C-alpha cells in the first residue's frame, strides 16, 4: 500500500494485530492499571490517565513483581482491555510468558527507524509471525486495516 512503511522486528509471542499506537516512555507494571478501563493509574507515569485497552502498546520493558504483573495483564485480558499487541525494547521472562499464555502478540528488536517514525495515534499492524510491523499513514483509519 502506498505510503506504508514496513519495518523488521523479532517475534516473541505469535499472532497478528492492528491498532492505534500508544507510546510509553516508562516501563510498565500492568497491575497499576484499572482493569475496567485500561487506564494507567501509576502516579507520575508517562501514561498516567491514558488507556492501554485495544492499543498497540510501545514501551521499553515490563517491571515489578512477577505475580502482580501477570495478574494485571490477565485482569485486563478477561475484560477485553488488554493491549492488542506489545512492542518492547527489553524483554523479560515475566512479560514473555504472560504474552504467550494469554496469546497477545509481542515483538522486540524493532528497526530503530520505527521509533523515529511513530507517534501516539498512528496505526500499525504488528505481524509477529512474519516478524514485521507496518506503519499506516494517519489519514487511514484503523478500521481499514487487515
Amino acid at each position, binding site marked *: 500500500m502506498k505510503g506504508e512503511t514496513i519495518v523488521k522486528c523479532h517475534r516473541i509471542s505469535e499472532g497478528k494485530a492492528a491498532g492505534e499506537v500508544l507510546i510509553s516512555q516508562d516501563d510498565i507494571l500492568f*497491575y497499576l492499571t484499572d482493569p475496567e478501563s485500561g487506564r494507567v493509574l501509576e502516579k507520575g507515569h508517562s501514561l498516567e490517565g491514558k488507556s492501554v485497552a485495544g492499543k498497540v502498546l510501545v514501551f521499553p520493558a515490563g517491571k*515489578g513483581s512477577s*505475580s502482580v504483573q*501477570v495478574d494485571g495483564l*490477565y485482569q485486563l485480558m478477561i475484560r477485553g482491555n488488554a493491549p492488542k499487541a506489545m512492542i518492547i525494547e527489553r524483554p523479560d521472562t*515475566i512479560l514473555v510468558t504472560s504474552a504467550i499464555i494469554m496469546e497477545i502478540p509481542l515483538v522486540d528488536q524493532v528497526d530503530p527507524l520505527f521509533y523515529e517514525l511513530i507517534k501516539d495515534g498512528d496505526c500499525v499492524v504488528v505481524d509477529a509471525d512474519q516478524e514485521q510491523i507496518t506503519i499506516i499513514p494517519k489519514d487511514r483509519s484503523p478500521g481499514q486495516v487487515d
Partner: protein
Amino acid sequence: MYLTDYEQEMLDGKYGAACAMALKVLVAVGECFGAKRLLEVSRVHVASSNQEADVWFAEKLLKLGGRCLVAPTVNPGFNLSYLSQHLSISKEDAELMKRARRAYRELGAILTLSCTPYLEANVPRFGEILSYSETSVTVYVNSVIGARTNRESVQSSLCAAITGRVPEYGFLLDENRKGTVLVEVEADLKSDFDYQLLGSCTQKIGPGVPVFVGLPQNPSQEALINLGTQLNTTGSYAMFHIPGVTPEAPTLKEAFGGREPERVVTITDEDLQEIHRKISQPPGKIDFAMFGCPHLTFRQLQEVAQLVKGKKLAVEMWLLTSSLNKELARRTGILEVIEEAGGHIVEDTCIDQPCWSHLKGKVGVTDSPKCAYYASMRGMNFVIRDLATCVEAALKGEVS
C-alpha cells in the same frame, strides 16, 4: 534450540498434555532469549499469589494432568483460618484462596507459603541451577547466595517445576552475571531501612547489574533483603554485587569481570531523602501498622517484641512472617509479648491480598516501600519509616 530425546518426547506429549504445554512455554522463552539448550533444575520456587491469573493457569495445568517433577515451594496467599477469626473475609475471596491451595497441593507443591524460601525450606547452594520467581527471591539467591536463576514469572517457574527444565540464558550464564553499573554510595547507610531507600533509587541507577561500593562492612541479612526487594519494586534487577560481601564479587575488579563499568552513578544522602519524601505520606495520625513485605525474619520479630513489651498498641499491628518463625515466636515467648500488646503475628500471609479490605482508605505505617507500593492499589496509604520508628508510631497512633 537443541532438545534431548527426552525433552522432545515431553514436547510431543509422551508425558502428558500439561508437560507438553509447560515445555512449549519454556522453549518459547528460551528461543526469545537465544538459549541453545535446556538445563535440569534442582529447585523451584513459585510466587503463587492466589490471584485469578495464577489460579487460572495452575488449574489449567492440573486439568491437563499436570504434576510437578521438581516439587516447588510457594508464596503466601492469606491465612484463612486465622484471619477469618479477626477480619471479615468475603465468600468469593475465601473460595479463591481454597482453590489456589487445592490446585497447588494437587500439582505436588510444598505448601511453605512463605516469600523468603532462601532463608528456610528451599535454600540453594552456590552455583545451583534454579527457577525462582518472586520479587525479593530471585535477586537474593543470585546475588547473596550465588545460585543461578533468571527473574522467572509465576507461570514460567511452574512450567519448570512440571518439566524439571529451564532454558539456559541470561543469569544462568557466567558472562551475564558481571557488574555493568558502578554505584558509588556516598550516602551514610545507618540502618537496614536505609537499604530500602538505596534500592528505591532505580531511576538514577538505570538498567543493568549494579555494583555497590561505599557501603558499611558486613551488611545484615535484612539489609541485603531490603536492597534486592526495592531494586525489584521500582525496577527490574536479577542481580547486584557488593565487593567483599556477595560471593561472585570478592573484589571490585572481579565484580565487573575485568571490564569497565558502562556507567558510574553516585547516590548521596540527598538522593535517599528525596526518594523517601516521594514514596512516603507526610507524618501524622495513623490507623494501623503493617510489616512483613517480604516476610519478617525472626530477628525483626524479636526487635518488635522488645519495643512493645509491657505496652499497649494504639492501632492494629500486623506482623507477617513464615510459619517457622511464628512457631519460633510461640516457643520463645515473643508471640505472647506481641499479642499482649495487641499485635498479631500471621503466617502464610501476604500484604497484597483481598483479606485487608477493611484497611482501604486508611493510613498505615510500614518499614517496607514495597508494601506501600503494592497496597496503594488496595487504597491504603503509608507513612514509611524504619522499623523502630514504625513501632513507636503504632504505640502512639501517630508518626511525629
